[in-house]
């Protein structure tokens, strides 16, 4: 059963420094919590580039291509109707729906893809056990790290030495 060590910092600079120090110690399940995105957090945590743009591109292309093929098949092949002398396969007339479906697929993929990447919905998380952690969405700057039980105390001590205002250890009940 893992332990979450949760620590509050007074300012962004010591928070990011602490994250860098713990990462140098070899901790891998580090995270920062803040009411706004912090400059430099990606670098401090060593995060790779988000894959969201790539999956959005693929989804958008799938949406557009399938939208076009759908129209081509439905009014060009399955049931051709002569409207105003336009040929059954009329590419200019198919552009609006193709475009809209490309956008729709990309947007739905971004939205649900984000939830997948976030591991949300997850209404309960061990860090919420710390009552003071409520400030993370208001003005608090927090660091959390998941460690093995025997490392929890040394990590807490290390965070205190790095300037944490308060440190708490929570058991991961999940």
């Amino acid at each position: 059963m893992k332990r979450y060590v949760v620590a509050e910092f007074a300012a962004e600079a010591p928070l990011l420094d602490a994250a860098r120090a713990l990462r140098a110690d070899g901790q891998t399940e580090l995270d920062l919590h803040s009411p706004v995105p912090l400059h430099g957090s990606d670098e401090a945590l060593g995060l790779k580039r988000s894959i969201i743009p790539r999956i959005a591109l693929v989804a958008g292309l799938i949406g557009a291509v399938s939208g076009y093929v759908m129209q081509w098949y439905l009014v060009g092949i399955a049931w051709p109707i002569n409207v105003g002398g336009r040929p059954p396969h009329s590419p200019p007339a198919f552009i609006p729906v193709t475009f809209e479906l490309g956008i729709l697929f990309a947007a739905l993929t971004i939205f649900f893809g984000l939830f997948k990447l976030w591991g949300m919905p997850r209404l309960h998380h061990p860090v919420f056990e710390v009552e003071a952690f409520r400030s993370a969405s208001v003005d608090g700057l927090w660091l959390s790290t998941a460690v093995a039980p025997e490392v929890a105390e040394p990590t807490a001590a290390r965070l205190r030495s790095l300037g944490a205002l308060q440190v708490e250890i929570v058991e991961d009940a999940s």
Partner: protein
Amino acid sequence: MSSKPATAAIALDPLEPVPVLVGRPDDRALTESLVKPLYAPMTRGWKMLVTALAAGMGFWLLSLATTLVVGIGAWGNNIPVAWAFDITTFVWWIGIGHAGTLISAILLLFQQKWRTSINRFAEAMTLFAVAMAGVYPIIHLGRPWFFWWLMPYPSTTQLWPNFKSALPWDVFAISTYATVSFLFWFMGLIPDLATLRDTAPTRLKRTIYGIFAFGWRGSARHWQHYRIGYLLMAGLGTPLVVSVHTIVSFDFAISQLPGWHTTIFPPYFVAGAIFSGFAMVLTLMIPARKVLGIEHVITMKHLDNMAKVVLATGLMVSYGYAMEHFMAWYGGNKYEAFAFLNRWNGPYAAIWYVQLVCNVLVPQLFWFPSMRRNLVVLFVASILVNVGMWIERFTIIAVSLTRDFIPSSWAMYTPTWVDWGLLFGSMCTFGMLFLLFLRFLPVVPIAEVKELRRELDHHDAHAAGQPAHGEGTP
């Protein structure tokens, strides 16, 4: 920029005389000022307004029910005027929605700082306006309970929507627009819902907000994806919003009716949409910022900028009017020329003059800074612009239909009480949805304004020629 002379510190940016954020409240003060209206008890004024709007909503429901029971015959529509109040109001609402997406998506990509505080508000307006708009094409179907025939589903009849017609394009455009607007709006809300979860005074509120926050914990790993995803949504919303009104204008432009059949419609409709949408944001925001006590976040700077957008788009719309007339003359088509002469001296000429005053003359007030900063002028002008834009759509749609090619097929159009009920009732329903939004959700994006404050601090530190010390340090 340490090489910058220190005198730069004194010179304020002459283009930004009014701040986008009054004072520099710290994160906690900012949060408290923005969530306060949500936790305060409901005021008498709010309850009275909700009651009044509920009555209007009742009128709307009655008109809808009459339409469903009696059919389209309950309306004033006839042949040749098959499209009248219904489609006019549809186009009007959709157009109003466009300003919200413009503010939230396009101005985000242009990195306009003033967009931050008003984007949630404007996007909520978009959602409710699109919801109102979406009702009209459906009830106009005649048998609205078969609305799903518009979708290409595998039916046993093996008949499919005709994708060479502009009307199925509309179905895809409007439904995509509604979906993407909602997702974008909701994405922006997630961090703020977490803030509400963590600050709400009662357990019930904490639980409800907590459920909709989906467990957001401000994680840096989450923010990383969030920022990119949010930007991409804005990138998708930008061409989308332009495409939607373009496609709406195709409903008219690709037909052959004089007054409809013109290539200027797509840009002219988009400009008109933004024109009326910004006016609607002003109409709603001027009272709301006062009542909610958020004048420090939505400042005169915002109103001033919106008035400038109203002026700019008003000029584009005026250009559209001029160009339509020019083409009617220069094109040499006598039916087209007649359609435009008919606007000036036909049976509906009176409303045409109202339209010109509202859409061409009224925005000219905003050349003057004193007018852009006068709340009464702004408020009245914003309402007039929307009256003018509704009339514009009526002129284009219904007036053009009353007199087409052959005088023997001409007919006048007169709305019935059901038409009026659908129009005013939809405004009340929109107002009702908006009041609920003001009551239960943060009107100003709290997390984004905190970021804005950091940016402004950073900007000031730069301007002062000092190295920006750890951003966000209190």
